[in-house]
């Protein structure tokens, strides 16, 4: 990493959790602009919790979250009403979290409500663009209940992208997708990153997807509530000192490659 490395998101001594119980302790990550960063770990280790803390939905139990060098969330301080930094992030939740009473097009238009008024046609145009990008232009008038789970996730990505955020947070975007759709999603993520140097922070279990898109990854451990390792996926797979990390990448990718 050169001197030009511009930090998009930084967590400093962050404890994330609910009430008094920290799910992950002392998370120190520094994610550069344009980087695709993956949060890894066994189910229930707190990946979603860390992500919810990063986007300001959970107050940090300790430490702080900084976006573009500005403190966004800090333990023990009364938060802002509507931090302007919210404009710069887009979030896709684990289950999509689309508004059930709205069509996909209307879902994508919701974020515009916080911006100065614009002509309806212009908003629809932008929304259709994003829906087209995720391959759902034909379903713009459908309700979330009328499309499949994978399509809901893609629609949720379109909604997260609609205001052209600087950081995109994705919670398990490819879980439950078929391999072809999943690969298309990887391409989409790479493309939006390359086009706008968008930073992407995502939770993923799909090894293929991690190797296809991730620049770096952090591995969280459920038992010790700590970050075991941070690094490029291949480095984690081949040379992590932690057996749990190698085991995660194990068998399918690591061992087979070692054999040849």
């Amino acid at each position, binding site marked *: 990493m050169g001197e030009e490395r511009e930090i998009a998101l930084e967590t400093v001594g962050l404890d994330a959790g*609910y*009430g008094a119980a920290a799910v992950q302790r002392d998370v120190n990550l520094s994610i550069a602009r344009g980087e695709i960063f993956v949060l890894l770990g066994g189910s229930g280790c707190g990946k979603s919790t860390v992500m919810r803390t990063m986007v300001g939905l*959970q107050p940090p139990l300790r430490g702080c979250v900084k976006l573009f060098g500005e403190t966004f969330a800090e333990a023990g301080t009364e*938060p802002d009403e509507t931090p302007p930094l*919210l404009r710069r992030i887009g979030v896709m939740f684990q289950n999509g*979290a*689309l508004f059930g009473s709205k069509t996909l097009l209307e879902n994508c238009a*919701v974020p515009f409500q916080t911006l100065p008024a614009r002509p309806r046609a212009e908003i629809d145009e932008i929304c259709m663009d994003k829906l087209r990008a995720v391959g759902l232009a034909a379903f713009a008038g459908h309700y979330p209940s009328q499309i499949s789970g994978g399509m809901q996730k893609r629609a949720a990505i379109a909604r997260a992208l609609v205001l052209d955020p600087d950081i995109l947070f994705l919670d398990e975007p490819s879980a439950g997708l078929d391999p072809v759709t999943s690969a298309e999603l990887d391409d989409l993520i790479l493309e939006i990153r390359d086009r706008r140097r968008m930073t992407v922070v995502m939770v993923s279990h799909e090894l293929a997807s991690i190797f296809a898109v991730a620049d770096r990854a952090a591995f969280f451990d459920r038992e010790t509530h700590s970050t075991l390792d941070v690094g490029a996926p291949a480095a984690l797979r081949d040379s992590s000192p932690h057996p749990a990390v190698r085991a995660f990448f194990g068998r399918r990718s690591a061992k087979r490659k070692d054999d040849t």
Partner: protein
Amino acid sequence: MKLRKNTGPAVSRRSALAGAAEFCGRLLAAAWRACFARDMRSRLPDFAGIFLRAGAQAVPVTMLVGFLLGFIIAYMSAAMLNKFGAEIYVADLIGLSLVKELGTIVAAIVLAARSASAFAAEIGTMVVNDEISAMRTMGIDPVGYLALPRIAAGALALPLLSLFADLAGLAGGYLTLSLFGYSAKVFLANAFEFCAAGDLVTSLAKGLVFGAAISAAGCRCGLETGRGADAVGKSTTAAVVTSLVLFIAMDGMFALLLSASGA
């Protein structure tokens, strides 16, 4: 909006009263902002839909309950007063009690049962589905966006529903008296003998406040929904119970205030 407020379990360590006070504060702030919002027109279809469901579609059941109540009260009273040949006073009794209290009570119970519960279930499902979290990451205040139109619709619906309950109750009362051989003309002439127009205005104003309170309780229970499969069921139950208790407490307070002020 408290952006980073804990969205964890509904049971918090704060006292229930402090939580309610905080919610009221957020509500007032949201209402204040809404007064200056640029495109309230775009929210109108939302409001209209809620009003249709909470108000218009509640008319039949409100009238049914109102009619039954009017009929039963009139019948019981008439059976007693008949002994003194004074059954025509049933008309006065019915008119006065419906306009002053019963119409509002029927409408309030219907609103709590039909709509406070529905608000809690709708919003609670959105909590469980992370839709509220999504809203907050977009910088949208769920209180302003979800609770405010529901509260406005409930506040408008309750007084109107109470009018329908009054009408149906009077019809029930008239049915009784017609059994005793009185004409509609005589019934109507007596029904409003002890009511002034002011009574109706007071009770409509009360209805406005109760409608807002009942809807607010429903929305708050929805927003406080916890995690797990039974969470939405719990908040729906809590919504009906809370809104009814709140309504009765407020009605009692109103009665005290009005009698103290000599009305």
